[in-house]
């Protein structure tokens, strides 16, 4: 009794719980098989940080990238595939364990070429299966790992060089060592909170000898400093127990970043490239660092040490060395003289020589990996690394829509979201040089706006006239110089198509597409002179404009009211005007919990309410890695935070859903996060979506495609996110819920496409099929589950493969039914594989799961741009159906013939006396069959003369694939073939009546069994 009571109470308790508790699905449980599509492009590729080859297998090479993770090639660099999707995508170093090179790979995350736009890492990783699985090995706060050195005689002894935090003090820097394979680490060389290890190398012949280059460096949002009294070169000869500076022969004064390399074939020879005020350049030591001599101070060696500090020595020849740089420099005389490497993308970060043949060289640049077969003289680009680094993207409203965007050191581009045969390199068109940032399409004209760094050029490009004009706003006489951010904001008005905005420290407006400009604001920034550093760089002045600060960074005109404009600045102001710029209010003081002067990365003005806006702040350039996302519903008087612990990484961009205001899309340093409840819970989207930095998000209004501009993995699209809008608590409690879908268009397309080689990256096209979308409460694993389409009368049209994931499932239907049964011949007839298309209309969806059946409907419509009349469609459908029937009729006829031939052969074998009768049957039928299907030849150049089947299937296929009325030639041809089919059936009937009947009578007489042939219906359904 007591037990019963407890069980009953338990049951009640669970029920109550179920009813009271909100169902919150996270991540894959919610997204099911909703999947992202990576479209690259790869033609400009992206920044490579570190290359690493396998010590014994020259086919294997790894590329560590700036924002696209680690890529592995197993075919000598012909093609690469990504092996690090789930982890921080910014890579500092990749190292293959020399004693277990097939399996053990180490990756230190966090880029070490410390430009303004670098991403961050989150520690050290190890794989013991060649990159299939990765385990974090600590160093969570290291931000950037520069070096991993493994004792070639003892895999458990490893040195890690940590460069460390770029924008803040940190004690997670210096050199660390493990002697137990990474279980425990000791810090063995540490200078201070500003100085990190930028290169650690060990003597390949004596692993107790370790060299370390320490570098003092720091970035702020407005400046960069390389060098100081703590930069130095150290050596240890006792495996890191004690260290000595080895500066004999070095220049006087502070040092900056030191490149460092040891000759693998002669470890006495060491090279370093020294950043200093005086006597900078390449130094060589021939006595393992005891003495140094300056050999060369060429531009190619000393330019931008923070960006280029890698020297690599030929593994076989200590006098051949390559230094990374603007173009890359190679010396064949031990460093006395240099020449540039062959022509390739500028900004060379790393080089590796092939293990067997030093003429084969791989080079990592700002524009991907290049290969050389002639010692670096000529360079060939790898065409399949889609690691492009977008700063910004936008979309237009064409069909298919285009995507526009600017990239780090790779200009600005636009290309289609879909293209016949896949989105290829040649589909992308350039629309700007230098570093590209924002690219916007004029709302109604074939005009594109683009820019290069710091608004040095702002282009208005007329697509049809192929004409460009620089429309950059200029300072007005007697007024302040304009300060444009490196990534200068621009915006197109939602209300006046020719209206165009740009932000310096002022907001500029043009009513004529940039020909004339007017300022509509005072300086909206803090205009803090302390943050306007004009001599950035430290020991090596680096004036690129990348550090220009106290500028406007984001402009958002309300889509509801043209007088409401939001402006966010890089020094932390959130300004709003409600009167078209006459008056401005800085609302940032109303935001709780936000550190002062945090960079306003993005403001999104709501499409639902004009009082509502979202603001995303990014403090990473001051060392603050937390996400800040706020919403106001009263023009900024009050703000509430939308941040939860679900969000990983600092945030840069937010996109509001156009239909359901509770849905928001957030781009962070480590991927895409989606909320469907207004920010109460966030889910990371990981279906084919790597943990890459999402810099900008746009939502295409017609297709509901979410388009992401990532800084390392190119453009990533989630096609049609509308199912997310329909997730409600009512849906989540159901076992199966079909989402209503709009009618699907049967596109009238059949073009050509695909001109890429198999080694060129091709972006996947969106699926243009009809989609059956449903929610499953539980993953289907046991028992039968089927999904079929029926017509309105309940006749089955086709069986589809159902999705069985928990969460959202999307099943594609290509508008086709089953292909016909085809007559058996010696070879195949390709037209016979054609499946007929269904007509527009409404169809039933029947999902069967175990004993339960669930039903819904789906509607198909004809292409609205079609020129085909309904009358013509009816003629096409009728002819196609008749030809389909002809195909099956012929198939059955040939089947009957084959059955009779086989049976007659069997009888003749068993009963030689029957031979006269059976051979007559066989001869007659074989002769008839020869006119119906090919009975000889192959599918290629030994093809037989086509017979009725081949001719019929050709016209069947042609007519079936048409949308319009068949031509009179096709109809005549059909008639001719149908007459032949009719005659063939008559001929068979004759044989049946005579020879076959005779055989059957003979069999009856001799107590044999006459052949019984299944009916046509049975044959079709067989």
């Amino acid at each position: 009794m007591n037990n019963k009571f407890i069980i009953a109470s338990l049951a009640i308790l669970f029920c109550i719980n179920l009813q009271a508790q909100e169902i919150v699905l996270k991540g894959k449980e919610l997204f099911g098989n909703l999947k992202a599509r990576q479209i690259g492009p790869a033609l400009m590729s992206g920044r490579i940080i570190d290359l690493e080859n396998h010590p014994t297998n020259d086919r294997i090479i790894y590329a560590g990238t700036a924002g696209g993770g680690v890529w592995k090639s197993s075919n000598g660099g012909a093609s690469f595939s990504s092996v690090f999707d789930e982890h921080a995508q910014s890579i500092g170093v990749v190292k293959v364990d020399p004693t277990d090179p097939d399996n053990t790979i180490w990756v230190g995350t966090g880029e070490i070429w410390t430009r303004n736009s670098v991403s961050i890492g989150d520690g050290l990783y190890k794989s013991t299966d060649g990159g299939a699985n990765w385990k974090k090995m600590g160093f969570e706060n290291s931000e950037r790992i520069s070096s991993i050195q493994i004792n070639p005689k003892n895999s458990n002894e490893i040195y890690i060089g940590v460069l460390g935090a770029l924008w803040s003090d940190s004690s997670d820097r210096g050199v660390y060592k493990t002697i137990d394979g990474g279980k425990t680490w000791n810090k063995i060389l540490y200078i201070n909170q500003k100085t990190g290890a930028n290169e650690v190398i060990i003597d390949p012949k004596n692993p107790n000898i370790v060299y370390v280059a320490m570098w003092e460096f720091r970035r702020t949002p407005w400046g960069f400093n390389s060098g100081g009294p703590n930069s130095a070169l150290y050596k240890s000869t006792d495996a890191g127990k004690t260290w000595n500076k080895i500066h004999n022969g070095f220049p006087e004064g502070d040092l900056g970043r030191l490149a460092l390399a040891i000759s693998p074939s002669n470890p006495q020879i060491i090279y370093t490239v020294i950043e200093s005020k005086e006597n900078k350049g390449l130094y060589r030591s021939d006595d393992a660092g005891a003495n140094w001599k300056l050999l060369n101070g060429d531009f190619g060696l000393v330019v931008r040490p923070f960006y280029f500090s890698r020297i690599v020595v030929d593994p076989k020849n200590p006098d051949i060395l390559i230094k990374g740089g603007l173009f890359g420099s190679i010396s064949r005389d031990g460093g006395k003289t240099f020449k540039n490497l062959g022509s390739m993308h500028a900004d060379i970060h790393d080089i590796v020589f092939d293990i067997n043949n030093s003429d084969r060289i791989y080079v990592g640049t700002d524009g991907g990996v290049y290969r050389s077969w002639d010692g670096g003289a000529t360079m060939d680009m790898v065409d399949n690394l889609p690691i492009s680094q977008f700063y910004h993207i936008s979309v237009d409203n064409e069909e298919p829509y285009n995507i526009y965007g600017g990239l780090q050191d790779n200009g600005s581009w636009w290309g289609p979201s879909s293209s016949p045969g896949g989105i290829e390199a040649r589909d992308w068109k350039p629309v700007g040089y230098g570093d590209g940032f924002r690219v916007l399409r004029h709302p109604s004209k074939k005009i594109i706006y683009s820019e290069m760094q710091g608004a040095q050029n702002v282009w208005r490009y007329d697509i049809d006239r192929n004409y460009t004009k620089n429309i950059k706003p200029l300072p007005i006489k007697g007024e302040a110089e304009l300060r444009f951010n490196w990534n200068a904001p621009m915006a197109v008005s939602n209300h006046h198509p020719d209206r165009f905005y740009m932000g310096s420290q002022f907001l500029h407006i043009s009513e004529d597409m940039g020909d004339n400009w007017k300022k509509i604001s005072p300086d909206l920034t803090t205009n803090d002179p302390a943050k306007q550093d004009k001599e950035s760089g430290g020991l090596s002045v680096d004036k690129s404009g990348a550090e220009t600060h106290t500028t406007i960074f984001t402009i958002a005109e309300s889509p509801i009211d043209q007088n409401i404009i939001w402006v966010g600045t890089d020094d932390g102001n959130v300004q709003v005007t409600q009167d078209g710029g006459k008056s401005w209010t800085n609302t940032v003081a109303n935001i709780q919990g936000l550190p002062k002067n945090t960079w306003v990365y993005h403001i999104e003005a709501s499409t639902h309410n004009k009082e509502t806006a979202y603001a995303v702040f990014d403090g990473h350039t001051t060392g603050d890695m937390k996400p800040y996302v706020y919403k106001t519903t009263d023009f900024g008087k009050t703000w509430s935070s939308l941040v939860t612990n679900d969000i990983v990484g600092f945030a840069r961009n937010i996109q509001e859903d156009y239909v359901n205001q509770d849905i928001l899309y957030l781009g962070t340093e480590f991927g895409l996060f989606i909320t469907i409840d207004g920010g109460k819970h966030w889910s990371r989207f990981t279906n084919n979506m790597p943990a890459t930095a999402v810099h900008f998000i746009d939502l295409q209004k017609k297709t509901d495609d979410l388009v992401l501009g990532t800084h390392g993995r190119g453009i990533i699209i989630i096609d049609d996110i509308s199912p997310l809008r329909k997730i409600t608590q009512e849906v989540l409690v159901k076992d199966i819920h079909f989402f209503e879908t709009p009618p699907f268009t049967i596109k009238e397309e059949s073009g050509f496409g695909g001109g890429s080689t198999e080694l060129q990256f091709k972006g996947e096209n969106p699926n243009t099929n009809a989609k059956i979308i449903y929610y499953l409460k539980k993953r289907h694993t046991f028992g039968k589950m089927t999904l079929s389409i029926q017509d309105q009368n309940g006749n089955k049209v086709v069986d589809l493969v159902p999705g069985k994931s928990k969460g959202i499932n999307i099943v594609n239907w290509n508008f086709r039914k089953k292909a016909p049964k085809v007559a058996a011949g010696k070879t195949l007839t390709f037209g016979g594989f054609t499946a007929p298309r269904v007509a527009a209309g409404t169809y039933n969806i029947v999902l069967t799961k175990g004993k339960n059946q669930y039903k819904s409907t789906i509607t198909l419509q004809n292409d609205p741009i079609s020129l085909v009349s309904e009358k013509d469609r009816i003629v096409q459908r009728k002819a196609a159906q008749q030809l389909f029937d002809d195909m099956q009729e012929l198939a059955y006829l040939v089947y009957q013939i084959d059955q009779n031939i086989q049976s007659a052969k069997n009888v003749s074998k068993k009963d030689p006396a029957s031979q006269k009768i059976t051979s007559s049957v066989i001869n007659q039928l074989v002769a008839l069959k020869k006119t119906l299907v090919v009975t000889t030849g192959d599918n290629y150049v030994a093809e037989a003369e086509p017979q009725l089947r081949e001719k019929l299937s050709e016209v069947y296929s042609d007519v079936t694939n048409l949308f319009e009325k068949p031509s009179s030639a096709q109809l005549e041809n059909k008639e001719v073939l149908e007459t032949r089919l009719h005659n063939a059936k008559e001929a068979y009937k004759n044989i049946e009546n005579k020879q076959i009947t005779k055989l059957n009578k003979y069999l009856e007489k001799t107590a044999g069994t006459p052949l019984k042939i299944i009916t046509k219906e049975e044959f079709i359904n067989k």
Partner: protein
Amino acid sequence: MNALKSILVAIILAITTSFQAQTADEIINNYFENTGGKENWEKLKGIKMTGVMKMQNMEIPFEQIMMTDGRQSTTIELQGNKMIWAAYDGETSWSRNQMTMEAEKNDNEATEKMKNLIKDWPSPFLNYKEKGYSIELIGNETIDGADTFKIKVTKDPIMINGKSEPNISHYYFDTENYVPIVIEEAVQDGPMKGKTIKMSISDYQEVEGLYFPFSQSSELQSIDFKEFDIDPEVDQALFAFPEGK
């Protein structure tokens, strides 16, 4: 009420401990236990699978025979022609040339791979230690929306274009029933080399005491099984290379 509380606590404890205490071996053992028992899997000599393969627009009926001694044969029906499409008789692996539809021997590496498959059937996990395979529980992962244990199996290295390469697969076992619901393997050759292909498996049903998945689908193709015939009578002609033809 106190009793109720302690029961609840006990239930929660039971759930959490069973979750934590899993090792790869326990998961595998549960899998065999839940799908018919290890002994019965060991007794299996061969199987004939009948079904339909769906690729793009095509539906291809097939019969596939797998024997524990490694012999296998796949017969397909294409436009009314039933033919052995690919087979391996224990020594020679062969398939049909798509131009001539005639049988041709596969290259030596493909044949070697077939030979290695003996160990994978009916499951790479069955007596994996004796086979020289190793398994590792990588962790818990959500896949197809379901909670799973991700288990890596490391098999014998294989020769690819003249070089020996490591050979691993990942199996995702449903935490509820301990059956694999997803298998992931990397493409081993060609320009897609290294890309992971995911195969979802489902529709487990019982056949003579053993549970088989009646549905397998990947982005390339899907297979619907209609029948599993255990220990079928087989003709050696199904496997042998048709000499002189």
